[in-house]
């Protein structure tokens, strides 16, 4: 009996604390400063750890981080120079040397494949999962690491899971309740309140620290918000600071329940799987949505897949054909505190969320950018590239012309034909043989 009473008391104090310190402030958008203190302690600890590691590793062993340094020296000379060619030169058996060298360079290191795995860290951040080359340094460091594991798994994880649970339940219940009301400005205001509160709770569930820059450019109603994609958390990060209408496929299970509840309170655009294939239908529905100036801005991730936050890949032109004003947003995560990238081939959603909840924190910067519209004589692809460059520059990310779809599919034949054309021109270009 006593045991059950004690457990009951602990549970109720726990819940009161959570309610008072986290839930209520979230509802009012106020911060009590607890997370800031946590972050300060965390930063100090990681700095200390970095210094100890640097002291510990002898300089000669040279196990340098391969974070931004490649494995091989790339020879970026164009094909003409590499083939020692003048235009209209003949085929030589030796051409194969240049191509096999280029081919091997690509096999050892290519720009694209590395973007589909997590970014390597410059210095260890005391998480086992990022421990690539780092060796045992000292007892104190290992002790801190063990303490870290205990804190993360025994203190933070239960707290975060509780919060996530509460957040999602509130979202579903709240939006369903609000959905019962007739359409009015009260309904919209309440729906915004519910969305924002629940998102804030969910962000706390991940110990998220987000810095928003240039809030004056926050996406307006009737526009389209476009951002680089790193993980499903991106949605959470953006919706904490504003309400958006989301676009996507209808899922089953828990996601489906959330989606159906949300759409009752405010008009999101959910498609059935079969409808997604019909590009015209999708474009039509989105056009209708933004034509109504009272509706919330649409949120789209034009890359189409998760990239590891070191680069921005090709933006699919579909989102840029709808018209309307595009509000670009750049999102950059700080990998030192937790790796936000979702490697969907390695982890499913549940293990991904568990990894998120056992990281130190999710720290990111969000930059709102001035709106852009398609200019005269610019087609959708050029416009998409222009927006992509702007986002890459703002977020400090590399820009790649490759399609994120390369994660799963082969390169399109058109790219290969381009290269073949270049080579063929050299062989038979001037009509001389």
């Amino acid at each position, binding site marked *: 009996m006593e045991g059950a009473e004690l457990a009951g008391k602990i549970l109720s104090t726990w819940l009161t604390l959570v309610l008072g310190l986290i839930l209520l402030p979230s509802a009012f958008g106020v911060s009590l400063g607890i997370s800031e203190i946590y972050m300060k302690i965390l930063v100090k600890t990681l700095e200390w750890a970095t210094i100890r590691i640097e002291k510990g590793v002898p300089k000669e062993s*040279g196990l340098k981080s391969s974070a931004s340094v490649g494995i091989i020296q790339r020879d970026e000379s164009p094909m003409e120079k590499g083939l020692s060619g003048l235009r209209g030169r003949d*085929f030589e*058996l030796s051409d194969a*040397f240049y191509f096999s060298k280029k081919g091997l360079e690509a096999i050892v290191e290519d720009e694209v494949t590395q973007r589909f*795995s997590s970014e390597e860290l410059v210095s260890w951040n005391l998480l086992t999962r990022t421990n690539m080359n780092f060796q045992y340094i000292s007892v104190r460091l290992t002790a801190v690491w063990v303490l870290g594991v205990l804190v993360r798994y025994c203190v933070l994880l239960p707290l975060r899971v509780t919060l996530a649970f509460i957040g999602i339940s509130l979202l579903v219940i709240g939006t369903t309740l609000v959905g019962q009301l007739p359409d009015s400005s009260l309904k919209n205001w309440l729906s915004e309140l519910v969305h924002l509160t629940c998102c804030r709770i969910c962000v706390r569930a991940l110990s998220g620290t987000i810095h928003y820059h240039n809030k004056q450019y926050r996406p307006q109603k009737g526009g389209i918000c476009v951002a680089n994609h790193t993980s499903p958390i991106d949605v959470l990060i953006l919706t904490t600071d504003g309400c958006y209408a989301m676009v996507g496929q209808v899922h089953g299970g828990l996601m489906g329940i959330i989606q159906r509840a949300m759409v009752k309170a405010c008009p999101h655009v959910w498609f059935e799987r079969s409808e997604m294939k019909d590009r015209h239908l999708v474009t039509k529905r989105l056009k209708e949505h933004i034509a109504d100036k009272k509706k919330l801005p649409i949120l789209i991730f034009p890359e189409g897949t998760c990239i590891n936050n070191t680069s921005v890949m090709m933006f699919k032109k579909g989102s840029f054909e709808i018209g309307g004003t595009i509000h670009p947003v750049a999102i950059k995560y700080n990998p030192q505190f937790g790796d936000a990238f979702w490697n969907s081939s390695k982890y499913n959603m549940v293990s991904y969320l568990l990894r998120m909840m056992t990281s130190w924190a999710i720290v990111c910067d969000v930059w709102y950018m001035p709106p852009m519209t398609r200019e005269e004589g610019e087609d959708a692809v050029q416009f998409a590239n222009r927006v992509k460059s702007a986002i890459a520059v703002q977020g400090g990310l590399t820009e790649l012309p490759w399609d994120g779809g*390369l994660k799963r599919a082969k390169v399109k034949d058109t790219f290969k*034909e381009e290269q073949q054309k270049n080579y*063929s021109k050299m062989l038979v270009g001037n009509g001389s043989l």
Partner: protein
Amino acid sequence: HGSPHSTLLEGSFDASSLLLRLYHRFRALDRNKKGYLSRVDLQQIGALAVNPLGERLAGGGGAGWEELLGEVDFPGFVRVLAHFRPVDDDDSGMRDPKQPEPLNSRMNKLRFVFQLYDLDRDGKISRHEMLQVLRLMVGVQVTEEQLESITDRTVQEADEDGDGAVSFLEFTKSLEKMDIEQKMSIRILK
């Protein structure tokens, strides 16, 4: 540390750290964690897929890596890369002739490329094989007549004994003036 792989890549840099990074790269390419690289794994590399010889290098169109060099497990992967090591000056002088030739010797580099052309591994590049490889390299951009004309010229220039095919010896002779070592070297960053 005495493993055969580290001797393949030994030099003035840290072989074990390079091997580790290559191993991570191998793991990243090996999509289903099979333990070896298949043709499909290599074709997924964008920059390789657009390379005119990309298909041959990925093992398509004829004898592939698996037949040429054994299963492309990690040691095989390292062996292929070892062909592209720059030739050090101190290698040539002091080598023990009884030891097998290092993989990055001129002869072995030539042999690697010869095998890209010699689809059926019979030791000769026939006119037909040359045509096939050229077709792989240019796709649909060149007509059949132009391609045949190029093939005929190339084979005639290299063929010394008039058998209509290019043997390995003829291949090396036709390229004796070429600086193979420089063209086919990949420098490792320290």
